C-alpha cells in the first residue's frame, strides 16, 4: 500500500506539454522537411509562413511548450544526478535563466519578422 502523493510541478508540466508537442513538433518537422524540401525553407519561406496569424501563434505556443517541457525535463535530470547543494541550486538557476532567454529570444524573432 503506497501513500497517494501529489505530482510534482515538473512531472505535471512534462505531461501536459507532451500532448501539445506530440502534435505540433511532428507537424512542424513534416512541414519543413517532408512536405517542403529543407533547401526551400529560406528567409522568404519563413516570412511567408508567418503571414498567417494562426501559424505564427501555433509556433509561439510550440516554443513555450517546448521550453517548459525541456526545462522541466532537465530539472528532473538535475534532481536525479545532483544532491541538494549550492551546485544544484545554481543548476536550477541556469535552467530558469536559459529557458527564459529561449522564450524571450524566440518571441523577439517572431515579433521582429511580423513587424517587417
Amino acid at each position, binding site marked *: 500500500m503506497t501513500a497517494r502523493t501529489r505530482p510534482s510541478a515538473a512531472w505535471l508540466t512534462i505531461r501536459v506539454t507532451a500532448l501539445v508537442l506530440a502534435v505540433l513538433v511532428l507537424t512542424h518537422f513534416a512541414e519543413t522537411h517532408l512536405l517542403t524540401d*529543407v533547401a526551400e525553407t529560406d528567409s522568404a519561406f519563413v516570412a511567408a509562413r508567418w503571414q498567417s496569424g494562426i501559424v505564427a501563434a501555433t509556433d509561439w505556443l510550440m516554443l513555450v511548450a517546448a521550453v517548459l517541457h525541456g526545462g522541466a525535463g532537465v530539472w528532473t535530470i538535475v534532481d536525479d544526478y545532483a544532491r541538494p547543494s549550492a551546485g544544484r541550486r545554481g543548476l536550477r538557476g541556469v535552467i530558469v535563466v536559459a529557458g527564459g532567454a529561449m522564450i524571450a*529570444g524566440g518571441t523577439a524573432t517572431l515579433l521582429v519578422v511580423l513587424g517587417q
Partner: protein
Amino acid sequence: MTPAQAAFVAALAVILGLVAAFGLIVMARARLGVGGGPIGPITRLARPSTARLELHRWAFYAHRVSGVGILAFLALHLVDIGIVAISPALYDEVHVLYGTPPLRVFEVGLLAGILFHAFNGLRLLLLDLVDVGLRGSERLLWLAVGLTVVVTIPAAIVILGPVFA
C-alpha cells in the same frame, strides 16, 4: 565556408559533443547502485531476457538522451531562426547548410530521436493512466520502437533524396 557558416557548424559540433557527453554521464550513473553493486553496460546487455526491467531501463536511457539532444537542437534552431530577424541574407547564407548531405543525415537522426521520444513519451503517458502490466508495457515499448523505424525509413528517403538526385 563563410564565417557565419563556420560558426553554425562549430555550434552544431559543440551540441553533438554535449549530447554524447551526457550519454556517457547517464551510462556512468547507471553503473552505480543498481541492486547488487556496479554493473557495466555490456554485462547489462548480456542479462537473460527474464530480467524484464532491463529493457525498460534502456528505454529510460534512450528517452533521457534523446530528450536532451532535441532540447540542444532547439537551442541552436532558435539561434539560427533568430538570424532571420537581424538579416534575411545572413539567414539564407547559414540556412544553405541545412540542404547539404551531412546536415540531411543529421536531420534524419534528429527525426528518429524526435519520433522515439514522442512515441515512447506517449507510452509513458498511457502507463500513468492505465495499468497494462509489465508485459503490456514491454509490448508498447516495442510498438514505439517499431513505429519509429517504420516512419523514419520513408522520411529518410524523402530527406536524403536530393543527395542522390
